[in-house]
């Protein structure tokens, strides 16, 4: 078996998270010889989808000798995401999926609703995020006059053209802030809140005061609007059987283009020459006898867990995975939804996200819902209290899984010095736009050029005969 491993690869990839699998797929399509390794016996790394037994065992919240997962229907019907995210239907990940034809292996469904909370505690209102002028006029989130202002704002966003200063409302786009734009339209604080956090999807208010930052925020709002317009109900889509399907799809793409895949394989040592990584020593387990091997590569890329001394912690995510037997209250009985609680509504600096999916997406048996509440930790204790505003929205909870704060890692160096290119941990954001930013960033670092996804499929010969 060991003789099937080549002496040298162009790239060795460590970890089968989504970022790594997209890069493997793209590099393989571009003709690079890829060896892709994971220490686990499954794909997906930190971003896998797991069944209920695995989840109980991961969090350890059950009594020894009991098997509580057996009360919840067929085990294989559960595909619970460890990292909750949705795809923007006009977003970057969707474009990559289409341009690589990975859509052939996956089926997607709309997420039924996108909601935002105004106020807190017993006075909280949960309402649909308005996505066009007509919805703005019907929205309970605003008073009569504010609705008109919001309508004007949304219409202006649609007409805005960065190149045409006549559409800039007399503002200097190179220096004005998004706050200046909101003020131009006279929008009130609660409206700014849901625009910035539930449409532009910023996680904090830092974006408000960035000089020259308005065009980016406008772009984000347009992405939201375009994504809603694509299928109608919400800007989000979600793959049947859970997010764990995404890395598997890109791994298959890589394999089809010659990528070699090894699970159950531990990296024993990174081999360096003159300060540059040139290969690995590794052991594949789960086979008799264990297979030790050594191979070389021009570069190595991987997730932070494979390079503990080359990454730093930049924050912590708090996350609670909850099993429900009902939809989230006040979301029109949605089979799935995103509920965003903007930070200022509940006296925080970071938003709280609640993502919910159900049997409609083949992630659990009928009559169950999975709701994941997450935010960035702002304290060093009382993490339950930080998530409480989100948990409060769920109604009765059958089972709750919450572990210690999850560190978010970033690479210390960009990899050009030692040929080791490391991805970032998945952040707390509600969608994959930051993940695809990281993919582009890593690609730029290792290939020295921009990743162009348009036209990638032209290089793909699909042997299809009908």
């Amino acid at each position, binding site marked *: 078996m060991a003789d099937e491993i080549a002496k040298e690869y162009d790239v060795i990839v460590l970890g089968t998270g989504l970022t790594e699998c997209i890069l493997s797929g793209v590099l393989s399509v571009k003709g690079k010889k890829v060896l892709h390794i994971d220490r686990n016996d499954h794909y997906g790394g930190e971003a896998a989808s797991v069944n209920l037994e695995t989840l109980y065992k991961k969090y350890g919240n059950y009594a020894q000798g009991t098997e509580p997962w057996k009360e919840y229907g067929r085990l294989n019907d559960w595909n619970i995401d460890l990292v909750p995210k949705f795809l923007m239907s006009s977003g970057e990940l969707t474009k990559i999926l289409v341009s690589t034809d990975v859509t052939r292996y996956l089926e997607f469904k709309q997420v039924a609703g996108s909601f935002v909370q105004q106020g807190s505690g017993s006075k909280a209102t949960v309402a649909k995020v308005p996505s066009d002028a007509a919805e703005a006029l019907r929205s309970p989130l605003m008073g009569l006059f504010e609705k008109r202002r919001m309508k004007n704002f949304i219409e202006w966003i649609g007409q805005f053209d960065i190149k045409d200063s006549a559409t800039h409302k007399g503002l200097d786009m190179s220096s004005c802030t998004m706050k200046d734009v909101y003020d131009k339209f006279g929008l009130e604080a609660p409206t700014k809140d849901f625009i910035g956090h539930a449409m532009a999807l910023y996680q904090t208010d830092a974006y408000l005061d960035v000089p020259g930052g308005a065009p980016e925020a406008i772009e984000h709002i347009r992405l939201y609007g375009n994504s809603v317009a694509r299928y109608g109900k919400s800007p989000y889509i979600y793959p049947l059987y859970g997010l764990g399907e995404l890395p598997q799809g890109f791994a298959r793409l890589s394999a089809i283009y010659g990528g070699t*895949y090894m699970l159950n394989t531990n990296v024993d040592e990174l081999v360096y020459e003159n300060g540059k990584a040139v290969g690995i020593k590794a052991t594949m387990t789960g086979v008799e006898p264990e297979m030790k091997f050594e191979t070389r590569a021009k570069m190595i890329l991987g997730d932070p867990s494979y390079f503990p001394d080359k990454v730093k912690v930049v924050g912590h995510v708090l996350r609670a995975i909850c099993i429900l037997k009902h939809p989230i209250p006040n979301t029109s009985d949605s089979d799935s939804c995103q509920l965003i609680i903007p930070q200022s509504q509940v006296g925080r600096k970071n938003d709280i996200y609640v993502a919910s999916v159900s049997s409609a997406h083949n992630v659990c048996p009928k009559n169950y819902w999975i709701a994941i509440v997450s935010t960035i930790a702002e304290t060093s204790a009382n993490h339950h209290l930080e998530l409480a505003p989100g948990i409060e929205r769920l109604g009765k909870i059958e089972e709750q899984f919450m572990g210690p704060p999850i560190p978010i890692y970033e690479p210390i160096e960009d990899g050009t010095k030692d040929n080791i290119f490391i991805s970032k941990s998945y952040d707390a954001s509600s969608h994959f736009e930051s993940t695809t930013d990281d993919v582009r960033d890593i690609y730029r670092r290792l290939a020295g050029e921009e990743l162009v996804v348009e036209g990638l499929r032209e290089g793909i010969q699909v042997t299809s005969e009908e």
Partner: protein
Amino acid sequence: MADSGNAPKPSSSVKLVLLGEAAVGKSSLVLRFVNNDFQENKEPTIGAAFLTQKCNLPTRTIKFEIWDTAGQERFASLAPMYYRNAQAALVVYDLTKPTSLVKAKHWVAELQRQASPGIVIALVGNKLDLTNDEAGSGGDGESPGVDGEGDARKVTTDEAKTYADEEGLLFFETSAKTGYNVTEVFTAIANAIPETSLKTARGPGAAHAAARSEEQRVNLNGARDQNAKDGCAC
């Protein structure tokens, strides 16, 4: 036969997965079935994402979506996605190589564990052209001298057939090289798929995706694929 069909027959997509040891001829069988072609000394599979081929039955048309392992079976790294919703599987061994049957039995067990309960599995002994059996006579399976002249058979028909019967598998011996029995395998699979488990075409290109409970499904490829894939003549 001649149902002079103006009314189109119902058409269903069936996901079929290929399994078996490396170099037993999985891709060659499919190439023979799809393109009626055979390549000597074919390189290990690269770049074949997904082959499709229609199989016309008297009352309906089955469109096979054939998934190749893409080599991911080599180090036991096939993803669950591969088995997901597979309605049929072709488990291939090389009848000149006994270890490949052992491996085939492993894959059958894996399918019984991971795949949908109703999956139709066909066990296929390939490379019949390397044996003394007269391809076409079906062979009696009791080839005498294993090392006999020109006969490289090392797995008897009886041995494999008995195993297939025990596990409830369809069983065929084929030659991708001569084409012997290849279409028969796929036709038998098509016939064995229960009517009830058939749904209308899925995935991109599915113009009339079944109405029930499918209303929120989205086709990311949008209009482009509709043009490219629909209405392709067989």
